[in-house]
């Protein structure tokens, strides 16, 4: 019966453009965090500077996407899946922008650490970085492919990220207790690790919005809508 594209081809193109801009922004944020972590582990201040200055571009894209969404809402009066797509875009753009800021934080730690002597490598930090990057990548894939299953995997895997962060946290504490001269360095690494853990949280937000976008059901904060699903009181 009906084709899967909008009768109005300009509208169809505008929606496609919005999706593409979000993906481009997601890619920039992914690259920024990868750069920040590499600058940290490879003690590369030039790369750190590049990540910090690159954030302006991410911020610009956020403003651009916001404008696109507002224009679509005002001029097209979107409904149903289009409405859910555009409101999702409006929400995940904020998460992506914040993720860009977290990458900048990591890059700033990298700058700081590049002036200190090297500390011993922390394998978990690299793993944390890889996992948080893959969480964002997967969330963006889920967004493009409208894949609820993939989005749900991202939501579930956030626990792995949290466990990894927790382990690294303990390791760093032990490291500092053994040798108080490393406290400054270890604290910087701990701070960077925290940024990666938060990065994963924002990826989870994106994934939750993907579930909403595809299914029209809100999986965030169960019980916060009316009385339904509220915590069951225990007697």
């Amino acid at each position, binding site marked *: 019966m*009906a084709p899967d594209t*909008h009768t109005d081809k300009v*509208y169809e193109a505008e929606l496609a453009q919005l999706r593409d801009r979000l993906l481009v922004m997601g890619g920039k944020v992914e690259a920024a965090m990868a750069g920040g972590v590499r600058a940290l582990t490879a003690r590369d201040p030039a790369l750190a500077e590049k990540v910090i200055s690159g954030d302006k571009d991410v911020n610009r894209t956020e403003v651009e996407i916001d404008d696109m969404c507002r224009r679509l809402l005002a001029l097209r009066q979107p*409904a*149903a899946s289009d409405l*859910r797509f555009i409101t999702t875009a409006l929400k995940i753009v904020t998460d992506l922008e914040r993720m860009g800021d977290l990458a900048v934080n990591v890059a700033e730690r990298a700058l700081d650490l590049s002036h200190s002597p090297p500390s011993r490598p922390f394998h978990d930090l690299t793993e944390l970085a890889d996992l948080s990057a893959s969480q964002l990548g997967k969330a963006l894939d889920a967004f493009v492919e409208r894949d609820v299953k993939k989005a749900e995997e991202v939501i579930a895997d956030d626990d792995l990220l*949290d466990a990894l962060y927790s382990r690294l946290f303990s390791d760093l504490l032990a490291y500092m*207790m053994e040798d108080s001269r490393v406290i400054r360095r270890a604290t910087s690494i701990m701070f960077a690790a925290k940024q990666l853990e938060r990065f994963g949280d924002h990826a989870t937000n994106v994934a939750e919005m993907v579930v909403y976008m595809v299914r029209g059901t809100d999986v965030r904060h169960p019980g916060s809508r009316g009385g339904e699903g509220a915590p069951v009181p225990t007697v």
Partner: protein
Amino acid sequence: MNAAQEISPVNSSPRRPVDSLDTPVRVSPEGPAPVVAAEPPKLTVKNLDAWYGSNHALHGVNLTVPPRSVMAAIGPSGCGKSTFLRCLNRMHELIPGARAEGTLLIDGQDLLSRDVDPVTLRRRVGMVFQRPNPFPTMSIRDNVAAGLKLNGIPGNHHEIVERTLRQSALWDEVKDRLDASALSLSGGQQQRLCIARALAVQPEVLLMDEPASALDPIATAKIEDLIHELKERYTIVIVTHNMQQAGRVSDQTAFFYMGDLIEVGPTEKIFTNPSEKRTEDYVTGKFG
């Protein structure tokens, strides 16, 4: 290492704590169940079929409309929504060769039954049309009172004229010129006059067939505002091509396509998360 293990990370995430502080919750992906009014429906349509000659225009429509609510019927041209509306007060059968079958209950009473006089039915189920159609040779006052006279309704017509003109939000604009020709009014005023005329015989249900499609945005807004007010007293079924209008005025929306009722549900649901793919395609503009 031992000492380190005693200290847990600070605030790993406010939303997803490592040490779960979450109270077990009942997850309800669909959100709270809608509050269902205990009141029986004003209108009940069961297995309604309609034909134009051999053309089967409406296929077994089933729906209910709660009292004092607005139902919008949407769908592309030729989908059956206007036929559906016209069946509701038996105007459909006025077209030569046209017929309808099924059950139409108002407060449980079958109005398509042959024992029911269509004129009586139309007093209970009033209709407002796409183009304002006041009686051109009559004054504003006489237009409103026309239905009363036609139905031989006794009583103080002046009082009824004032009351219904107030109900249709026209009184303040015409109170000083009730004897002027109805054609001296603007299009939007004429449409509100037609609504007043329909209301004068005190119907229970008001049918509106694209009542604002010939009006400018301001006159349209006045009609839509009026619909919100009339809803407190009447049950309204409105056919509209303007989906934003359906969104603005209706509580429930029914989507028709090629003579079938595809989906009916709360308007918010139809426009944010419809259940049927065809509804989704229509409200997002993916038809044709």
